[in-house]
Structures are given as structure tokens and as C-alpha cells.
């Protein structure tokens, strides 16, 4: 399968690879997918007092399109409010990366990952 230049670029130079402290109240963590299905994404966001995402990190086990989808997402969510980040649609990711139909599920997974991270952050705030 031929990959788009943007997928290759994110695969070769993934942005924001890493880990944030999942126990930090300001950090939301979303982990979606399953090893048996061939992809697992872990997306983490650090949110400031104004409710704006100031940092994002990811690690992904999956194909090149899954890696690219999560890498792109970390770039997009930085500087966004929680609501803005949670409203990112998988179709926008798929379009930006020119994903073929068989790889659309990678962008769906990325959308689930950011929603899960935002939910996790919000839950932490309620507890505190």
C-alpha cells in the first residue's frame, strides 16, 4: 500500500512522543484500542487553569496510519480548549492525512483517544 507523504512524515518524525504523569490532576489520559486488534493509542493532555490544553503526548502501537493519526492529533489539540479538542472529528484527521478507506478506523481511534483523555481529565476535576 502506498502511504501519503503526510503519513510518512509523521511516521518518520512523530511529534510529541512521550508520557505525562498520569497521576497529576492536570493530566488527562485516554487509552483506546486493543493489542489483539493491532492498535492501541495512549493520548495524554496537560490542561492549564484556563481550561486550555498546553501540552499533549502520545504513544501508539499500530500501523503507520495509526501512528500518524495520533501524532497529528497531539499537534492539533495543543492550545485548544477541552470542548474544542473533544469536537475534533475523525474525518478531519482522515482528510488531512489522505487515509485510504481501509485505514479510516485509525482516525476513528484517534478521535476516541482525545475524547477519552478529555473525559479522564474532567473526572479528575470532579473528584477534587
Amino acid at each position, binding site marked *: 500500500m502506498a*502511504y501519503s507523504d503526510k503519513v*510518512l512524515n509523521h*511516521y518518520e518524525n*512523530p511529534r510529541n*512522543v512521550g*508520557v505525562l504523569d498520569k497521576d497529576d490532576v492536570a493530566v488527562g489520559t485516554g*487509552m*483506546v*484500542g*486493543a*493489542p*489483539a*486488534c*493491532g*492498535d*492501541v*493509542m*495512549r493520548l495524554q493532555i496537560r490542561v492549564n487553569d484556563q481550561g486550555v490544553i498546553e501540552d499533549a503526548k502520545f*504513544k*501508539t*502501537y*499500530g*500501523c*503507520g496510519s*495509526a*501512528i500518524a493519526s495520533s501524532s497529528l492529533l497531539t499537534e492539533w489539540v495543543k492550545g485548544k480548549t477541552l470542548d474544542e479538542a473533544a469536537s475534533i472529528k475523525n474525518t478531519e484527521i482522515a482528510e488531512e492525512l489522505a487515509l485510504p478507506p*481501509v485505514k479510516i*478506523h485509525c482516525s*476513528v*481511534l484517534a478521535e*476516541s483517544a482525545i475524547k477519552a483523555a478529555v473525559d479522564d481529565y474532567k473526572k479528575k476535576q470532579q473528584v477534587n
Partner: protein
Amino acid sequence: MHLNLPIYLDYSATTPVDPRVAEQMMHYLTLQGKFGNPASRSHKFGWEAEQAVEIAREQVAALINADSKEIIWTSGATESNNLAIKGIAHFYQKKGKHLITAKTEHKAVLDTCRALEKEGFEVTYLDPEPTGLIDLEKLAAAIRPDTILVSLMHVNNEIGVITDIAAVGQLTRSKGVYFHVDAAQSAGKIPIDLAQLQVDLMSFSAHKVYGPKGAGALYVRRKPKVRLEPMIHGGGHERGLRSGTLATHQCVGMGEAFRIAQLEMSDETIRLRQLRDKLWNGIKDMEQIFINGDLDQRIPGNLNISFNFVEGESLLMGLRDLAVSSGSACTSATLEPSYVLRALGRSDELAHSSIRFTLGRFTTEADIDYAIPLIREQVGKLRELSPLWDMYQEGIDLSTIQWTAH
């Protein structure tokens, strides 16, 4: 040293035509060559073509120590498998309607069996051992009074393990059951002696042995005689078993390819095993990597490895300088991970993480020297990206996690 990238390490998928084979084939196409129809009995053009086809048939027979009268030309191993299995089933269905094969067979066998099931035949699909090999006792236990055929591959295309067809042949002969062997992945790689083996039918492919694509053969034993119902009807070519004008150049190419394989097999076996072992020794100290299939009872050129916590297709991207294949779902049309590795009892994760390296005639030591550091580097890079690798490092048992299947 200069390398041609990407390096071809997918010889079990297909092989390039050996230049010596291509040279022979070119003499049977044009007006200046021997272009006649081998079935034309009335002139020199036909006689020359027929002679070429018969010499090629003898060359194929010689590699496997058979009589050339036992060789039927086909379009490839898929057709040979179809002809053998459907041919036996249809001819002997009054004797019984039960067949036995294994879950790790090639689709050309499995789908043929599925087609027969729709016609009312019953098929037992044996589970392999974790090594990929078939347990003889389990096979014996599966044979019933109405069993007419056992079909097993000699060498598995994904993991390269070798079935003990001598032992299976003894069993099937003693039970009065026909035995078909798909030898697409073994011919020219390991010795086959059909004068000794109690095999009734054997399928061959030309393009796995440095011959052309679109050419194959089926061995059909004469003593004791095996009868088949043909699938393709027409001019009665190939003793009525496979009608259609023979492709002289394809037959010649397959014959030459098998002749060369016979000459070079013993030296090539040693060379390929050294290269394969060098590749394995260069990476085997890496953490959490596993060989799929038995390493000893295996053809020399095959190495199938699961790199845990790394997904196969992303690794293929990282290994773009190597032409290899993966058992990952993402590389298959069905989005299911390798059914062969699953049948071995490998987890979905390990099946997703598998890469098959197959070495062949034109693989050099420089190729392997290039591959080893590249594999180490790319697996390392992807593990740094992998949340599963993180969790493994932290000592978390991944099987205890509640995953969100999708």
C-alpha cells in the same frame, strides 16, 4: 559494497526467473524459435515443440525421482491442488465422502475443501502442534472408514516447517487412503524421492523455484494407479486430465528451473542455512522476540519472527529497504491476522507482530549484514513509540488489562 535497495527477502512469495531459465524459454516463442503446438502431429513444428515439452517433463520428474509419465502440466500449484483434491473427491465419492487436511494449509487447499463441503463432502481440519507440525497420532485418529483423501503441505509457506510425509504416507497407504502433498514450497529446497515416498499426488509450482509464473505440475502416481476426475475438459491433452494447448515456453522454463534446482540444491541448502542462521544470530538477543514454528524441522531459507509490542505493518514501513511480509492484519485484505500463526496458538498480538524473512538464490551475505542493524534499529524505534512496550517495562501483565476492542 553496493547494494540494490530494497533487498528482496520474500522468496517464498515468488522468485525471479533465473537468467538461465529465461534464456531457454526465449527459444520457444517466435517464428525463429520452436513455436509449434506440441499437439500438432503432422509437421516438424509440432514435433519439435512436443520434444521440448517431453524433455522438460523428464527434468521435472528427475528432481522428484518420478516417472515423467506421472507428471501432468498445469497453470500452477493452485490448479494442481484443485485438480488433485477435487479430482480424487469426485472420482472416489462412492467409496466415501470424507477428507482430512490441516488448518495451516494454503488457501488453495482450504478453499478447495470448502467448495467440496458445499457439495456434501465432509472435511476434518487438523489443528497443528504449537511447532506448526502435525501430530501423526491425531491424524491417525481422524481417519474414518469413509475417508478417501489426506491432503497436507510438505513445507508451510509462512513458517517453513517440514511435514514428515514419509510417515504420513505409510499411515495413509496402510489405511487405503489417498495422500496428496502440496509441495509448492519444498520442491528444489529439500530432497523429494517419490520412488520411496508413499505419496499418491503432489503439487508443484515453477515460480517458487526460479521458473516462470503461470506454470505448475501435478504428480499422479501410476503404481498403484491413482485416478482423477478432470476439471478442465477439451482436447484430451495430458491423458485427458487437463485439456488445453500446452504452453511450450512455460513447460521448458519449469523443466530448466527444476534441472538447475537439482544440480544446486545441496550446496544452496548449506549456503542459505548459514545466511539464515547469521540473520537470526544477529537479532536473537533482542528482548521479547519469538520464532514462529519449529526451528530444526524447517527449510533453510525461512525465518518467521514475532517482535512483541511492535505492530507488523508499522515495522514493514520501517523496514522499507527490505522486501518482507507480515502476518499483521493490516497487510491482509480481510483485516484478520495470519490464520497460520493463530492455528499455532499464537496470540493475536504476536500474529500482528510477525515478519517473514525468506532467503533465496540471489541473497548475499552483504544483504544480511545490511538487514541486521536495520531490524534492530527499527524495532527499537517502534518500541519507544509503543505504549505496550512501556507497560511491559513497568511489569504490567497486558492480559490483565480491560481493553476496548473495536
